[in-house]
C-alpha cells in the first residue's frame, strides 16, 4: 500500500486563498453570502475561508455547519453513523447565496444529501459548491464551482484530508488500493 502526499500545508493555504478570492469575485462582493461546511472537515474549511474573506474584504460573513447524515441514501448499507451538529447562522438562508464547503468531492452523493437538507431549512437564492479536492468519479450530475485541487484518482484509492483543527496536522494524501 503506497501513500503519497499531494498537498502540503502551504498548498492547502494557497488553495483556500484562491477559493476565497473566487467566491468574492463570482458573488461580486460579500452581499448575501453564507458559508455552510459539511462536517467534519468541511466545517473547519468553511471557517478558514470566512476568515480569509474577512481579511480580503473587511466584512465578516456568516458561517455554519450542515450535517447531511440523516439525508444520506446509503444509511441502510452502512453501520449506523452518529449525526454531527448542524448550526445555521442567525440570519438563516432564505434569499442568501449559500456556499457549501466540503473537503473531498467524490461520488457527489453527500452534496445531493446536502441539497435535500437545505431544502428543509429554507430557500436560498443560489447554492454554490466549494471543495478542497475534486477527485472525480461522480455518480450524479453535480459539479463544484470552486475547486482547490483537481486530483485524478482511481476509484479504489483513498484520499485523506488532514486538517490542524481536526487531525493536528495539515496534508492531503492519496493511498493506493490495499493489495
Amino acid at each position, binding site marked *: 500500500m503506497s501513500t503519497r502526499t499531494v498537498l502540503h500545508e502551504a498548498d492547502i493555504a494557497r488553495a483556500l486563498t484562491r477559493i476565497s478570492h473566487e467566491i468574492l469575485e463570482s458573488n461580486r462582493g460579500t452581499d448575501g453570502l453564507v458559508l455552510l461546511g459539511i462536517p467534519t472537515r468541511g466545517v473547519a474549511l468553511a471557517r478558514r475561508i470566512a476568515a480569509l474573506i474577512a481579511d480580503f474584504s473587511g466584512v465578516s460573513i456568516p458561517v455554519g455547519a450542515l450535517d447531511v447524515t*440523516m439525508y444520506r441514501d446509503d*444509511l441502510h448499507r452502512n*453501520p*449506523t*453513523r452518529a449525526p454531527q*451538529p*448542524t448550526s445555521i447562522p442567525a440570519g438563516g438562508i432564505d434569499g442568501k447565496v449559500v456556499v457549501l464547503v466540503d473537503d473531498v468531492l467524490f461520488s457527489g452523493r453527500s452534496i445531493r444529501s446536502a441539497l435535500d437538507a437545505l431544502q*428543509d*431549512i429554507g430557500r436560498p437564492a443560489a447554492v454554490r459548491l466549494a471543495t478542497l479536492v475534486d477527485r472525480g468519479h461522480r455518480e450524479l450530475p453535480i459539479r463544484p464551482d470552486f475547486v482547490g485541487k483537481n486530483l485524478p484518482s482511481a476509484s479504489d484509492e483513498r484520499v485523506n484530508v488532514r486538517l490542524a483543527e481536526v487531525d493536528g496536522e495539515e496534508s492531503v494524501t492519496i493511498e493506493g488500493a490495499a493489495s
Partner: protein
Amino acid sequence: MRHLLDTKALSRADALEILDVAEDMADTQQREVKKLPTLRGKTVVNLFFEDSTRTRISFEAAAKRLSADVINFSAKGSSVSKGESLQDTAQTLQAIGADAVVIRHGASGAPRTLATSGWITAGVVNAGDGTHEHPTQALLDAFTIRKRRFGTGSRGQDLSGVKVTIVGDILHSRVARSNVWLLHTLGAEVTLVAPPTLVPQDVSAWPARILFDLDDAIAAKPDALMMLRIQLERMNAAYFPTEREYSRRWGLDARRFAVLGTGSMVMHPGPMNRGLEISTEAADSARSTVLDQVTNGVCVRMAVLYLLLAGVRDARHASNQREDAK
C-alpha cells in the same frame, strides 16, 4: 444498537450516544420542515397491551418525523382480546413486515421475550413492561436534566455529581427503576423517597439512597426533584391510609416547593394528579420541566429509532467509518 430493552444493561457510552443523537434530533425540530427522510420505507409498529396515550403518541410522532410508516396496534378490541398469544401476534407483525416493534406490556420481561424468542427479526423497543423498566422515559429525563444544566453545551456531558431525588410509588414504578440505573450509569447521585409500604422489599443492590421523609430530602437541595404519579389503578392494597395523608406527607405542596429553592428543577413523567403528588404552584412554575420532558421525549425516541433502524441490521455502530463513503 439492536434493541432497547432496559437501562440496566446500557453502557455509559451507548447512553451518551443516544442523548447526543437526541440533541441533533432536537436541532432538526427547530426547522421550517421538521420531517426528515431518514427512515423512509421502514415500518414501526406500536404494540400496546396496556393503555397509554402519551407514550404512544410520542413514539408515533418520533417515527413520523423520521418518515417511517407507523402502525398502531392496541390490545383492546384486537385479536389479543380474542385470546391470541404474544407469539402469534409477533409472527403476524413479522409477516406484515415490521422493522421495529415498540412494545408496552403489563408483564415484566415481555419485550425481552419478544426480542430473544426468534419470532421476529425487528428491533424491539421497550415502552414500559410491568414494574420492570421504561427506558425511553429515563433517557428523556436524563436528557432534560442535562439540557437544563448545560444548555447548548450539553453534548458529550454526563451527569456527574448531579443530585436527583425521585419521590413516590417506587414499588410499582418502572420509571423509577429505569432512572435509578441510567442516572447511576451517568454519574448522578440518586435518592429515593417513598412511604415504607411503597419501597420494594430488597433494594440493597440498587445504587440509590432511600429516605422516608420528603422534608429531609428537600432540605438536601437536590438538583432535580422528580415526583412520580400515584397510580391509583395499582393501589389495590392499603399502601397508605388516604390520598389526603399521602399528599400531606409525600406531596410537593406549595410550602415544600418554596423551601426547595430556585436551584432545583421539578420533574414529573405525567400524567399528573394535581393536588395529590404535585401542587399546581410547582407544576406550572418556570422550574417545572414537565412540558420540556414531553418535547424532549419525541427527540429521544427519534434518536432511539434512528440508532435502531438507520444502519445495516446487526452491524455494530462505527461512526468513524463515515469517511469511507465520501
